[in-house]
């Protein structure tokens, strides 16, 4: 039991289960999943479907954070990739053809990849602080998206494009399948190659890694490229869902939700050790919470406060310091007096 509690995913999983249980008690239909024409429907399925863009973005953010970085530009990259894709579809003679949509999606994601290269270049090659480097694109990206769409919200009617967000494959929402595929591919890739451990080494101690001969520059650059590309895919799913490229609303604030998901999942903002499974749980916590707010009918004016209150609660549940205090209160052995001046430097 204590071993289970020490697992780094124990508290994130607890938080998620608590949310689900609260929902189930509040509305027994929450857990109900129905099958219609070989497709699954229900509140849980909606959560999975709607979580896809955040899942993709948070996945990339996990890698970037592991290198001690941060990517604030993901929302803007979503806007750009949506704008590129929908402008191509809108301008084509056959917006309903699968070929057109595939080309458009490839173009949108390709541009997002290049934006990731740009971020990576600023951080890894020019050594600009990540928060500043990606802030540039965060501010400029939406402007670029507006230029691409001529300042309008480009709307399209294209069945193949709609399939991306609303379609089903093997009983499950296609958007969820995309997100899960990305999660599995990246998780396997990081752990089957040495990329994962080298990324952690760079994040924990960049100088020691450099002296050990790790190509830290390439690893950091790669993380931003992955983040940009995944944000690009997220942008397509978002645009597909609203059938429009909205440069201002696409991915609005998603960078902050993604950071929140990563942290809720147990990856430290200090970089180093990261957990993709934790990020997936973090995203599901956020998405379940959003769904709860909608269901409970919290007014839109109050919902941010409600959201924040629950997030604080979740963070407190996971806080190691609070765990220690709780143990002290429940009569467990009090921790020994902390070593005096433990922060003092110990001369060699």
């Amino acid at each position, binding site marked *: 039991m204590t071993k289970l509690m020490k697992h780094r995913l124990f508290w994130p999983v607890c938080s998620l289960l608590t949310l689900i249980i609260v929902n189930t008690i509040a509305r027994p239909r929450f857990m109900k999943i129905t099958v219609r024409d070989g497709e699954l429907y229900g509140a849980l399925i909606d959560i999975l479907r709607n979580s896809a863009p955040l899942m993709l973005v948070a996945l990339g953010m996990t890698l970037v954070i592991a290198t001690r970085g941060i990517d604030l530009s993901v929302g803007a990259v979503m806007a750009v990739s949506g704008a590129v894709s929908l402008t191509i579809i809108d301008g084509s003679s056959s917006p309903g053809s699968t070929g057109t949509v595939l080309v458009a999606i490839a173009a949108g994601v390709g541009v997002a990849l290049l934006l990731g290269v740009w971020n990576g270049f600023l951080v890894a090659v020019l050594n600009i602080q990540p928060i500043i480097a990606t802030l540039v694109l965060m501010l400029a990206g939406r402007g670029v998206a507006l230029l691409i769409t001529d300042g309008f919200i480009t709307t399209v009617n294209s069945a193949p494009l709609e399939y991306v967000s609303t379609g089903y494959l093997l009983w499950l929402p296609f958007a969820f399948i995309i997100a899960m595929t990305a999660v599995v591919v990246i998780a396997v890739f990081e752990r089957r190659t040495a990329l994962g*451990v080298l990324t952690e*080494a760079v994040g*924990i101690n960049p*100088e020691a890694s450099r*002296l050990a001969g790790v190509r830290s520059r390439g690893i950091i650059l790669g993380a931003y490229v992955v983040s940009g590309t995944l944000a690009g895919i997220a942008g397509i799913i978002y645009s597909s869902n609203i059938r429009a490229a909205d440069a201002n609303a696409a991915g609005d604030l998603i960078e902050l939700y993604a950071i929140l998901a990563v942290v809720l999942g147990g990856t430290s903002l200090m970089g180093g050790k990261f957990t993709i499974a934790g990020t997936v749980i973090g995203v599901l916590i956020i998405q379940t919470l959003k769904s709860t707010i909608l269901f409970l009918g919290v007014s839109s004016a109050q919902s941010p406060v409600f959201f924040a209150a629950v997030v604080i609660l979740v963070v407190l549940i996971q806080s190691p310091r609070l765990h220690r205090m709780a143990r002290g209160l429940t009569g467990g052995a009090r921790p020994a007096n902390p070593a005096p001046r433990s922060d003092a430097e110990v*001369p060699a």
Partner: protein
Amino acid sequence: MPADIDTPPLVSMRGITIRFPGVLALDGVDFVLRAGEVHSVMGENGAGKSTLIKALTGVYAVDSGTIAVAGEERLFGSTADAQQAGISTVYQEVNLCTNLSVGENVMLGHEPRNRWGIDWKASHREAARHLDSLGLQLDTHSLLSSHSIAVQQLVAISRAMVLDARVLILDEPTSSLDRDEVDRLFTVIRDLRDHGVAILFVSHFLEQVYEISDRITVLRNGRLVGEYAAKDLSRGDLVTKMVGRELVELEAISEMAERTIDRATTPVLKATGVGRRGVLEPADLDVYDGEVVGIAGLLGSGRTELVRLLYGADRADVGEVEVHGETARIASPRHAIGHRIAFSSENRHAEGVVADLTVGENIALGIQARRGWHRKLRRAEYDAVVTEYIQALGVRPADPNAVVGTLSGGNQQKVLLARWLATAPELIILDEPTRGIDVGAKADIQRKVAELASQGLSVIFISSELEEVLRLAQRVVVMRDRRRIGVLESRDVDVDGLIDYMANEGEGSVA
């Protein structure tokens, strides 16, 4: 003129003891500072110099002992208390606000006020007066960052004068100054001394210590060795007192190291005139197959700087390097690793181990970095390598899944050595591999180095403990004040001879 011994002490520290978890940083140290003297505190790294200063400036609380300023016993709970008592410190890295003007920095917190708030005109006038008294004519409106480090340091001293400092502590103030700037600083220091300020000076540069000091206090391993008048203490004696003579019987190792190196062959590494402006004067170094070349020199002598340039950790701006007789360009650690050169930094925590990774991951890191991320070590190879080197070096605990940050210093050092040996290097550079680790681990590491060298590995070995250098090395390169001053065959010299050479050889000449 310099205060004589009968002047009553301005600062008197008695029986100062400071304990850190597991370490006795200062053990009953006495220290006396008189008004109107420049007093140097000398000692190798870890001797307790910086701890002593931090006790005096209120950064650390003392566990026992007393501090009296002007005869009045004080208890410093914070740096503010120490400043209140008239003790000011100028650190190596200037602790001023570089984005404010010179005048603002000098007067910060002590600006003259009128009824509209701060009187900036008067403030700058006052600042100019203080600067002028140190012989500094500066535009007080100019940004501090627009001036050299030397001028910034003088500004920091002016600021101390505004605070009415009676005691001025200068911690490595000259480490980034050139000769002219040092002269300028020394003129100011002498002037302050003649006005009755007590000055505590810390520097690794022996020559400067002798140039400026009236008195010298030597610390070693947290204990007081003694207080001496600078003119009565020869350089050789000073170095002996700093380094100490604690011998460990390691006969077998020195026997293993006592062999003739065939220097008719092509050297594994031959560096000619490698240097970097402001860091190291161009220096030569060559290492042959199976040879251990020691580098002897005090901290700051350029020994670390030299090997960092050779490894590409820092970039040399002059000089040529040949590996096995062929010109090699080494501008980054990866280049060096490509030439099968390995480097273990003196700074184990910041530049060596990756603390949150496991013992196994740390050992495999060198190999993995060489292979690149796409060719991960197979599980079986990984297990084999990790197990082999944990055993070969006697890492404790012998658990590949233990997190390295939880190991003792000696075991971390062994992990670091294992990482490099696993990459099968031809030359390994070890910078202070035995610093801060227990006696047993020290002997383990020396034995391993001697053993590997006798099997053909070339080694560059740096240690503050000269016995270790002489025991392991066939030749010793001697450095002082960022300059290579010579090379000795270690069979021709003993520790005293080496100390004498370090302190006196090449005096006044420019290599």
